[in-house]
């Protein structure tokens, strides 16, 4: 058995073990279902942007499962397409925050010279309220899903970087890292082979929180009129536009509102479950 297969084997069995736990399995299934629905949305359901003002604000019916909005667009179609946006935003922000945050965090935790400077910058970003920073960035970039993603990434990076830095600092002091140094590991190997794998767990947990924070922030930005362009059917946009309609057409906001809350709840629960799974102390206690 080569090293690679051993590793894969171990990872696979860890995955199997994790999936055997309902606390992890259920959120993963929900996420998979949401992803499949999102991917199939164009095939499953009509155009989310096609307007028909003459059929506006119709109550839910068989033809329009969740009714129509003020443009006569299908709320069901918009909500389903909104899943794409929310998942896209969540996933891209998470991946980007991971890439940047992990790089900065590792660098900061490993190279004392850049640590002070990097952390001051991270402090500065964190000291500006997320929403305010994101609104300002959206004013700078203009409305757009991609721009919203960037505007959300920037405030999320320091959080990820701080977590990774903290873990790196503590891993760096572990004897097995000293052992690796005495074994002649080059700095890059030390960083990527020895330190980084140990940050994976906390990173993963933090990633789920970044994901849910991103989805919520996107919704709030849309809600404040500073998110994706209005014609993009993001949940935040649908809720934002339907807000004034609540009393005459509550269906416009209920579907996306419920979907949003479920998605975020799912991801957060997944994060909690992974964290408990990784923390032997908690695992022992809660098993």
């Amino acid at each position: 058995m080569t090293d690679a297969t051993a590793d894969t084997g171990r990872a696979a069995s860890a995955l199997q073990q994790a999936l055997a736990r309902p606390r992890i399995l259920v959120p993963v299934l929900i996420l998979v279902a949401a992803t499949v629905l999102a991917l199939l949305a164009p095939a499953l359901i009509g155009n989310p942007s096609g307007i028909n003002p003459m059929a506006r604000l119709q109550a839910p019916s068989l033809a329009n499962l969740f009714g129509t909005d003020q443009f006569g667009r299908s709320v069901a179609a918009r909500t389903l397409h909104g899943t794409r946006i929310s998942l896209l935003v969540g996933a891209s922000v998470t991946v980007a925050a991971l890439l940047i945050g992990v790089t900065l965090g590792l660098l900061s935790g490993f190279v004392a010279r850049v640590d002070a400077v990097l952390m001051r910058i991270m402090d500065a970003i964190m000291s500006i309220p997320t929403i305010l920073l994101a609104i300002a960035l959206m004013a700078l970039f203009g409305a757009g899903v991609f721009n919203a993603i960037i505007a959300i990434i920037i405030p999320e990076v320091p959080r990820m970087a701080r977590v990774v830095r903290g873990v790196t600092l503590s891993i760096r002091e572990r004897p097995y890292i000293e052992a690796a140094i005495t074994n002649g590991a080059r700095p890059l190997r030390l960083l990527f082979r020895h330190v980084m794998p140990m940050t994976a767990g906390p990173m993963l947990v933090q990633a789920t929180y970044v994901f849910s924070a991103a989805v919520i922030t996107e919704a709030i930005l849309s809600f404040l009129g500073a998110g994706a362009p209005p014609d993009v059917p993001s949940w935040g946009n649908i809720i934002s536009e339907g807000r004034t309609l609540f009393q005459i057409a509550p269906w416009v906001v209920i579907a996306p509102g419920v979907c949003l809350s479920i998605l975020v709840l799912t991801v957060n629960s997944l994060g909690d479950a992974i964290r408990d799974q990784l923390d032997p102390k908690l695992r022992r206690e809660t098993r």
Partner: protein
Amino acid sequence: MRLTRRNFMLSAASAAVASPFVIRPGFAQSSPNVIRSKVIASLSSLDPIWTTAYITRNHGYMIFDTLFSVDEGLNVKPQMVDSFDISADQLTYTFALRDGLRFHDGAPVTSADVIASIQRWSKKDNLGLRIGKLIGSLTAVDARTVRLELTSPFSLLLQSLGKASSNCCFIMPERLAQTDVATQVTEMIGSGPFTFSAGDYVPGSKAVYVRNADYKPRQEPPSGTSGGKVVKVDRVEWLFMDDVTATNAMQSGELDYFEEPSPELLPVLGALPGVTLDVTNKSGVEMVVRPNHTAKPFDNPDFRAAFMRMLNPVEHLTSYLGDPKYFTVDGSVYPVGTPYHTDAGVITFNPDEAKELLAKSGYNNEPIVVLQATDIATNRIFSTVTADQLRRAGLNVQVQASDFSTMFARALKNDPIESGNGWHMIHFANIATDMADPITSRSLSGAGDYLGWAKDEKVEQLRTAFLAEGDIEKRKPIAADIQVEALQQGFIFPGGTFYQPHAYTAAIKNVVSAPVPIYWGMEKTA
């Protein structure tokens, strides 16, 4: 003509959110003689010459007075002016002020104040600027009489001085009117029916106006912005809040008056006991789509002609207003109810013709950039519908959304379309009086000096002729010719007129109909 800014301050932050629910009445008791009104936007600038913001204009009407004003039928009437005289050659105007006009600091209104105010206004307002170029002399005949001599006739002079919308020629004390036009006047001393309570002012949130006991109103009944400005309450409090929040406040008795509620809320407000929905701006607001003539393919007249037939404004206005009783669709560049309104040359929705013209224009699926301001409801909704309709008509549409400020800067900058930062189409909601004639309506400028940069010699010649013509009946055919040419050339797509009612409680009586919200004449019963 200017963008309707009514929704501007109702913007992202403030407008975005509020409870969509209604709470039971009884949280706050209505005080007699105080009107609490939810206004169209947050007031943060006070100088109505310095800025064109509609909310600042409305504020100007509270504390300043004008020489002339317009009645409900948009006819010019003297306001501060007692009597006036126009020379036969239409070059010399003499205005005599009414008796007893005093500023809030007690000083009488003099010719010097009027002269300084006209001068400042004429450096800012678009009609004012035209007049400014024509002024030969502006002198005081005596303390209360002013003589204005023009170098050539300007048929709209009185109308300009009495125009209902920004920038109105408000009369300020000379010392304030001498302020550079680029500098904001912040000391609020006028001679209008209300005084400004500076101590209560919270920029962006609250402004308070107190009845000016020394004001001498005209004897005529109020009509439009003209007539006697008799104030029948002690205080008017302007509050700015989100529309949904305001709806709650209406029902809980915390609010007496609600300017232009979001149309979606009208069914809710209308169902509240005692609440009246009243269209006080009878001339309404015009939806306008303006293409950029300098950007390919809109430089091609065939393409513009195709475009003029692609849009069906019924969908725009239905999406925004819902109930058809709040809008009329009509293809005139002069809104329904304005003096020059005509059917001449009107183009209507015609998808088949549009297809032919589009094919003829050689359109090659170039992306068409529609600007969208996300923080302004009308703009957001109109551009959304336009984009959909243009797509249906076979155009490759890109909606480029941003906040209003960014959109506006981008529109003015007019970068080449190839740069990726240019634009093809922008939406406006202009109040109808701003489009009432071919001069006031900047949309009809063929000089290439306004957004869209339409250039048309014929239109410019017709406008010059229009200005020189003293008789309104003779001006009408000229205006009609302008309309024909402007529509043919696709200056603008006039989408129809809509009317947004104000909502007020049963305690409010005698609301004056005018193009702008008016708080004199209004009564509040206990």
